[in-house]
């Protein structure tokens, strides 16, 4: 049986899965039902938590963290000083775009981990040529 290759997950994929109103919800519900190994940035978790805090309330924001804990296939990569330095370099490289540090760290991880597929509805993650699932 072929080994399933790692995919990168960004905030948009998590929100599309969790928000049943999102037009991509059926796609991500299907993908998360049987996920391959998944990787993401600690900044993505912070963005997702912030989204629930701003859009809803603390209770739902904490539920979001419970979801991250339960998602066994997901590895959260730390955002440390080295990651900041590499991400800032990308932000400067794509200075003509509204690239967040979370997006940039995602692009760094995709490059370093040789990830070929990205679960995202955000076109920024396609900047370096990785294939998006939508």
């Amino acid at each position, binding site marked *: 049986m072929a080994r399933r290759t790692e995919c990168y997950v960004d905030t948009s994929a998590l929100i599309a899965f969790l928000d049943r109103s999102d037009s991509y919800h059926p796609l991500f519900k299907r993908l998360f039902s049987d996920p391959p190994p998944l990787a993401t940035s600690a900044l993505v978790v912070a963005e997702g938590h912030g989204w629930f805090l701003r859009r*809803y309330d603390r209770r739902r924001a904490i539920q979001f963290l419970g979801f991250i804990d339960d998602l066994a296939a997901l590895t959260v990569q730390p955002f440390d000083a080295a990651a900041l330095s590499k991400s800032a370099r990308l932000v400067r490289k794509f200075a003509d775009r509204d690239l967040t540090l979370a997006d940039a760290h995602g692009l760094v991880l995709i490059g370093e981990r040789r990830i070929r597929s990205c679960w995202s509805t955000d076109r920024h993650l396609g900047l370096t040529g990785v294939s998006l699932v939508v």
Partner: protein
Amino acid sequence: MIRTQISLERNDYTLVKREAKAAGVSVAEYVRRAIRQALPACSDAPWMRYAGFVESGNSRSSRTIDDVVYGTKD
């Protein structure tokens, strides 16, 4: 991975080939994704209980995250 063979109408094949090229993936990968999207989700994995646990009413919510988290520009 199971290897299988399917027959497509010529017109469908032309469209699939064009869309796969536009998405930067092979025809096989494009078809796999279409099948994944069409199949119902069936899993009792613990994280699946969170699927659709909020209903924002915004069909573009996953594409407007930056506006919510970082705010909109004046």
